[in-house]
């Protein structure tokens, strides 16, 4: 079931094309990674989802209905460039922001106190923002994004400004929110966290969507048929057995167990590779190398830039 959908969205700013015919659909209770180099158009798309800017053409849907202004109370948005009122006490400020999202004063106050306890910042409730460290401000910001229990959460670079411990805490909370039923759109340049968190990704480059699919499938799509093989035996034998259909990228015989990196050309399969080696040596391990999101990102963007 799709919670959110954007269909053929176009947006032009003055003379720059920010989005060209971009469509995405986000399944309910999933984490959707919105990736792309700087200036690709991610922030514009996110602002369109938040109804901050209107698309020139194209439509957006929430829960199968065309989205309108009142739907923004069901969205929680953590922008990349974020800030708080410096002179305001954080408790008061968080309540105000929650009220703007449609919560009553009492609900806002109760929910916020729970979150403040959870993030260990309750003692700062009556402090002004300017007295807080950057990390603490980020925590407050995260809380104000999620406190009104929105159906759709949009995080733009949520981990920036967090130390590794707090980044982990945040990751855990994001997964928690998903488990509790939230749907999350997640934009970041931190590819490690994409692999860890995202069920589905879309890659945008120069205003166009160039890749879209479940994270695993996309990574598989970019695999280059390279295998790590551990074996016992003579490298020379293997080299002979493999012949010209295979390319040996590296081999190492210094260890107790010899290792080998090998790539097969198109038209061959994993099993054919395995059966070609088996007569020549004893196989200890046989593992296909799946490219990291980082590699996928670089490769996809470079290819798209060539065209």
């Amino acid at each position: 079931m799709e919670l959110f959908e954007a269909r053929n969205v176009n947006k032009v700013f003055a003379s720059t094309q920010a989005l060209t015919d971009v469509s995405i659909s986000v399944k309910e209770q999933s984490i959707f990674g919105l990736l792309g180099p700087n200036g690709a158009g991610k922030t514009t798309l996110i602002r369109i989802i938040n109804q901050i800017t209107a698309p020139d053409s194209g439509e957006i849907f929430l829960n199968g209905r065309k989205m309108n202004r009142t739907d923004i109370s069901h969205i929680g948005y953590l922008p990349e460039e974020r800030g708080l009122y410096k002179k305001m006490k954080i408790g008061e400020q968080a309540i105000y922001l929650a009220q703007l999202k449609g919560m009553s004063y009492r609900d806002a106050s109760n929910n916020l106190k729970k979150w403040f306890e959870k993030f260990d910042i309750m003692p700062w409730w009556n402090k002004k923002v300017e007295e807080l460290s950057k990390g603490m401000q980020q925590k407050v910001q995260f809380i104000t994004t999620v406190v009104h229990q929105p159906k759709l959460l949009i995080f733009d670079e949520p981990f920036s400004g967090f130390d590794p411990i707090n980044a982990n805490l945040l990751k855990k909370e994001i997964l928690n929110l998903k488990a509790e039923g939230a749907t999350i759109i997640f934009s970041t340049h931190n590819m490690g966290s994409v692999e860890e968190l995202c069920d589905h990704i879309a890659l945008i480059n120069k205003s166009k969507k160039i890749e879209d699919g479940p994270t695993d499938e996309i990574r598989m799509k970019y695999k280059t048929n390279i295998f790590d093989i551990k074996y016992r035996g003579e490298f020379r034998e293997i080299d002979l057995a493999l012949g010209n259909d295979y390319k040996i990228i590296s081999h190492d015989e210094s260890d107790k167990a010899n290792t080998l990196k090998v790539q097969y050309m198109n038209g061959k399969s994993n099993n054919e590779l395995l059966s070609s080696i088996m007569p020549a040596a004893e196989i200890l391990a046989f593992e296909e190398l799946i490219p990291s999101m980082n590699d996928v990102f670089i490769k996809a963007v470079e290819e798209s830039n060539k065209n």
Partner: protein
Amino acid sequence: MNNTLLILKQEYLKRVKKKSFIILTILMPFLIAGVYGLVIYFSIKDDTEERTIAVYDATNLFLGEFSEEGTTNYHFIPKNEYETLKTNLKGSGYYGLLFIPSDIYSNNQAQLFSEKQLPFELTEQIERKLSRFIENDKRQKVIEESGIPDLEERLSKTRTSVNLSTLKVSQSGETKKSSSVVAFIASYAMGLLIYFFVFMYGAMVMRSVMEEKKSRIIEVIISSVKPSQLMAGKIIGTALVGLTQVAIWLVLGGIGLVVVQSLFFTPETAQQMGQSIMESQGQMNPAAMQAAQPNQVKEVMEMIGNLNLPLILFAFVFYFLAGYLLYSALLGAVGAAVDNDEDSQQMVFPVTFPLILSIMLLFPIAKNPEGPLAFWCSIIPFTSPVAMMARVPYEIPVWELLLSMGLLVLTTIVCIMAAAKIYRIGLLMYGKKVNIKELIKWLRYKG
């Protein structure tokens, strides 16, 4: 709760709770009262310094004519003492040295030596004493020469001071006493008041917008509320702060007035004061003594009463609100368009120029409220809040007032719509140097 209301409440409470607001609001009336009090105190305070002026009279006519006045004594000295004092005034114990030359009757010149800057009252006192003596003396001689016995009496009867009371004929043919002085003061004060409020609170809106943009909280806010709601809440909230301030001042002023009246203005003291005022006037200008009428205060009150107060009050509230809305919308748009203080200063000037112009023209407008300058300034919407307010106490034609108000309302609506557009685009625009040309381009953007 409605979002606009929430923002309004937030803006209002934030400002009203600020220490600077509380201090300014409470202290301002005391400050103004204090300043006026000091001015009045020093101007009516008895000069307590004991002074003795040495007088060398070369004519030998004035001996005995220089009586002690206030705290100033006169001591006549012979010529040889004068010669030594002239070069050794310091340490002599004399405050000053007056030299009356023998040719004073023909030259009207005397000299006063002193090592200090002499107070104005002292020179005025000496001049008056000398002039009056010589005048009387000369007059006496003329009377004697003429041989008419009661000439002095008859001459004094010729002293005349005409008081012009201006009467305004209304359309119904009624005549009312009006005073152009009272109307002038009223119109000048209103123009100034409108100017200060529009400027002060308009700038407040601008700073508030800039703060949100600079702290980057703006993106979170406008993902919750419409920019137009944010702007409306901000502008109305700030206007309420202004009205609160005025209300507090009115209450404090009322209390102050009652207290001052009951403390100092018992009927006897009022009478005494009236007398002393008349006396001092009489001293400076003997003719005025006869002209001064005890019911002058009553007359001024009557003139204030004859101003069309309900109209003035209505016009004041109208031009205050419309002028504030117009300028705060424009300044809010400026705040959204720029992202540093330097740029904002550059942009604020062209936007507020008409307002500054109207305050510069306030004096000529209030002086000649029926002239073409006054007319055009009070019709053109950007200057009309100040200019028209300066004309209203003079009872201007109704059609002019209606035209001015109508144009102002129209312009305000158009400007708010344009400002809302600039506001929405500007809020998320960073690092771009914005000028008027760029802003006009934004107005053509869609979506």
